[in-house]
């Protein structure tokens, strides 16, 4: 199947991107590196230079945020225009002195990585634009840490090499801890400590799993990366252990139930740009890792752990869904809601079909955009009302119509209204569950759409409708706050109206990756099912 823009008028544009990609392959590989290096360079130059004017600091940081955003969009356009069939493109390989261990700096993008890469670029851009104009103390250090985070994020999702994939993640994660500890809300020290210990633990378990994988597959001789590892074999008993380690390790990082308690508190405490980057992008590391590393090679392990994944995912959806309903603090509620939505993604993985996995990827992409938009708007609301307790905010809608419109749109997007990107992922996951070995799971899973409507609309009604409570500092959302919000909203809209922009590369890559895993059933509906 080929990828095409659906409208003929775009053919010229498609050709332009394809020609650019084909005629300058080296340049495009360098763009991938540039997207990582530029934010880090910005951070470094801010760190080492002496006294700088505010404007200079902002411009320097701005470059570090804008460049990866633009690069990610450009690469996505080129990728979609060239018929790559979901294969890796823009690859770059460099020996960093670890070649004899099979470890290289190996970068590139395939259809699975692409949505996450674009997500990192877009959310990074939005968070950066929002951070630049935020009036925090020690703005320069704040921006430096965010830039480091951004560099790490671009690296995570463009790494083919598994060690570097892990390494970039740590880069971004450590900045998050510092951001929470220094610029968080009340109780930041405790929360930062808890998050640090918890997530480091998750990362250690993941590392243990990855090392086990490295050792058992003999990747030292072939290269420890996402491409070659798919050709390698892991023996059955070890598969269970390794998959278990990866599931729990990655699970902690994605806030899989019952390893989720760090998430709502961390997001409620973190400064908005950090929450946007972490909840929106960095958290997806865990599920991305499962899809790119664990799922393609550990199919026996999946069979063993699938029932547990299903139950935990349902707990994520239902228990955390109810917990979300009970929240009164807006940011805590959003944090819980984001934990809840991870349940959908795990259910997509549980269904273990190209539909389920593809839909989970789409859902993660959309969720990243919508949750970061919500955290941004929640922060604006906090600035205006000086409060995040939804019982004490009220009736600000008539004073702030634009803020209300944006918040409503973001909330409706996150509860899966058609027209926004989130809908496609959710509906795909629901369809895939019914094709899984236990279709009954669809019933409890669909309760999620009612639960999310309840907390989402309650929040909107509390904050914007009814009688005004308390004073409003400043008026409607300003245009500099609006810019990043609109950016995210437009992305949600574009994918909502034109889902193939994301789904085609995802689908091709997923089918490539899992096609040879497919037993005979696949011929029927071009899908593979769980082998019993």
């Amino acid at each position: 199947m080929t990828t095409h823009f659906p409208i003929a008028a775009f053919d010229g544009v498609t050709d332009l991107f394809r020609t650019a990609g084909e005629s300058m392959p080296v340049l495009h590989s360098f763009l991938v590196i540039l997207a990582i290096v530029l934010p880090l360079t910005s951070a470094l130059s801010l760190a080492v230079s002496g006294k700088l004017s505010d404007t200079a600091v902002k411009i320097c940081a701005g470059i570090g945020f804008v460049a990866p955003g633009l690069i990610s969009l450009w690469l996505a356009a080129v990728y979609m225009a060239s018929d790559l069939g979901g294969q890796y493109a823009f690859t770059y390989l460099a020996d960093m002195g670890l070649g004899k261990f099979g470890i290289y700096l190996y970068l590139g993008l395939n259809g699975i990585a692409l949505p996450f890469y674009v997500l990192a670029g877009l959310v990074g851009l939005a968070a950066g634009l929002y951070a630049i104009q935020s009036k925090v103390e020690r703005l320069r250090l704040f921006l430096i840490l965010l830039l480091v985070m951004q560099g790490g994020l671009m690296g995570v999702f463009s790494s083919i090499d598994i060690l570097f994939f892990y390494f970039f993640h740590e880069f971004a994660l450590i900045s998050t801890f510092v951001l929470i500890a220094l610029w968080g809300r009340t109780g930041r020290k405790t929360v930062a400590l808890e998050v640090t210990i918890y997530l480091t633990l998750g990362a250690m378990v993941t590392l243990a799993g990855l090392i086990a994988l490295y050792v058992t597959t003999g990747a030292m001789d072939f290269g420890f990366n996402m491409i070659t590892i798919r050709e390698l074999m892991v023996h059955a008993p070890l598969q269970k252990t390794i998959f278990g380690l990866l599931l729990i390790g990655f699970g902690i990082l994605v806030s899989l139930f019952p390893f989720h308690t760090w998430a709502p508190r961390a997001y409620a405490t973190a400064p908005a740009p950090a929450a946007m980057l972490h909840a929106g992008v960095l958290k997806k590391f865990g599920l991305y890792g499962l899809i790119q590393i664990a799922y393609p090679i550990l199919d026996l392990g999946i069979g063993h752990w699938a029932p547990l994944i299903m139950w935990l995912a349902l707990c994520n959806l239902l228990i955390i869904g109810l917990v979300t309903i009970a929240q009164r603090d807006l940011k805590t509620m959003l944090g819980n809601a984001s934990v809840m939505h991870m349940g959908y993604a795990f259910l997509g993985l549980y269904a273990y079909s190209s539909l389920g996995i593809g839909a989970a990827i789409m859902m993660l992409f959309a969720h990243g955009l919508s949750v970061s938009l919500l955290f941004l708007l929640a922060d604006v609301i906090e600035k205006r009302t000086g409060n995040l307790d939804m019982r004490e905010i009220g009736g600000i809608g008539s004073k702030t119509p634009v803020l209300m419109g944006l918040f409503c749109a973001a909330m409706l997007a996150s509860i899966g209204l058609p027209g926004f990107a989130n809908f496609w992922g959710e509906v795909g996951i629901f369809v895939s569950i019914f094709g899984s070995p236990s279709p009954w799971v669809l019933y409890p899973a669909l309760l999620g759409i009612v639960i999310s409507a309840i907390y989402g609309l309650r929040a909107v009604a509390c904050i914007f409708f009814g009688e005004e409570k308390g004073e409003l500092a400043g008026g409607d959302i300003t245009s500099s706050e609006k810019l990043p919000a609109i950016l995210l909203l437009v992305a949600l809209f574009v994918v909502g109206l034109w889902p193939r922009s994301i789904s085609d590369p995802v689908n091709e890559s997923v089918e490539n990756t899992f096609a040879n895993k497919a037993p005979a059933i696949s011929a029927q509906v071009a899908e593979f099912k769980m082998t019993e």
Partner: protein
Amino acid sequence: MDLGTVLSIILLAPLVSAGLIWLFARQRAVLAMALSLAAAGIILCFSLYILLGGWNGEPYEVTAEWLRLGGLSLSIGFLLNNLSALMLFVVSFVGFWIHLFSVGYMNDDSARGRFFGGLSIFMFSMLGIVLADNLFMLFIFWELVGFSSYMLIGHYLNDEAAQASKKAFITNRVGDFGFLVGIIMVYWTFGTVSLTELDHILEHDKSAVTAIMGLLLFCGVVGKSAQMPLHVWLPDAMAGPTPISALIHAATMVAAGVYFLGRTFLLFTPDALVIISWVGVVTAACAAIWAFGQRDIKKILAYSTLSQLGYMVAGFGMGSLYGLHAHGDSHSALLYGVGASMFHLTTHAFFKALLFLGSGSVIHACHHEQDIFKMGGLYKKMPLTTIAFAAGVLAIAGIPFLSAFFSKDAILYVAMKENYGAFIILSITAILTATYMGRLFFIAFLGKPNSESAEHAHESPWTIVVPLLVLAVFSLLGGYLWMYPKPLQPIIEGWVPHAHGADHTTMIVISLVASVGGLAFAFFFYGRGSATDRLEKIAPPVYGIAKSKFFFDEAYGYYIRKVQDRFAELMAFFDTLLISGILVRGAAGVAGLFGIIARRLHTGSVASYVWWFFAGLILFGAFAGGFLDGLLR
């Protein structure tokens, strides 16, 4: 012009209008009105072009892939057949006049940009439902009408609007829960969700259809068309502006459920149809009773809408059963249900839109007074509105040879043939309908004014009156074949079941007795322009029963406050205490404890280290010797 292009223009015109309003006309009320009205005009013109010659009446389908993931392919497409053409006519025709009405009615509103943008979004979503050629696309627009309804109910941003809009959306989501399961079940059973392909499969072999599948799909209808027990949102939705109540909560959106039933009628087994019929019958009867307990003109009309929707659903169920029983398991016999319900949907769209717009005209004139006992004597002040409203009342009461007489009779007729109990309940409901509509009309329009605002009422401007008069004509004559464009006539001519011979006479007698009797009773019992409710005065318990609405709202309120919220809080407590507190913090505590113990053991005294060394040695020996196997196993 290519039919696909015309349909695309019809669908996209309101979307473009909404987009333009959002971008440029949020603060420019007049521009927003113009854009929205222009979109409605374009829709009406192109619909009429299709109906008056642009289309040959053959089913027309065009489709394009929208998303492909694994084996799932979602497409977007149009399916134009007689049924969707009828619905297209209703939506575009009624929609246009309500747009015009809104221009007059909303002239002093401060957020007209938002209102007219929302109206356009609604038209877009509703037309999507009408034209959708597959179930997933239908579901998408189904959700979108829910969203536009949410947005427009909440228009006034006050507490009432906040509660009502939230309630409407969430109640609909409850229905959509079953709806989506049903659609997914259809997808995995038949491998397709395309309506045409489903038709082809089901014409030859209906063995794969199960009752549960139909009932799950019906859940969506229960939510959207406000059937019991999910009817609670519709009366509250009256918190929105009156044109919205007319367009969304009377004429089109709430009827979408009935339209959906007609679009997928082959997916319902006889068992499912029996349950569907009874849901409709019970809704029709209960809502008619509740209407007597209301004083708010819009609330009375809302309960009347519930009741009429119940008629439609019952008509679908029993009409289909009648078709099955009378003519065997043939494809066309099943159309009786579709015909009966869709015919009533059409006439109802005319007269209920008229009644709501009439009430809007009254509310507008009385400075937002909505209590009928504070009106009275309006016929002198607002003659045109009164005439139009009277036409609506006569129509809904079912006076012979007016529109609803024909459509309601078709439903009563199939009920008589199919289930005598249901027939009696529906006949009594018909009497009740005439009575509560008479109560509304005689109290609000006749007699003397009962309040300042009613005394100062005056006839509304032409933008309000013209739509009233147009709809009045259709309410009176909407039962006749020649009122409809040619492609729609087969439905009314062939699909609607007609009574013959003795049955025909019986039906006329029943209608006559129910309508005239009900109106006359209301006239003499409630009196003209009275300021108090006579039923409340002479029989408080009876009035109380009607007013109680059988405690559905209280029950749901209790459930939400005492069960759902309590349970949610319990879960939050469990989450904080058990998982976060004991497991996570506890784990940290245990690690700390080990640290303390380990520190204690490092006493620094050589003697104690020697003791520990020996203890370890013994333990190791025991382990190596296999003495500990029993313990460790």
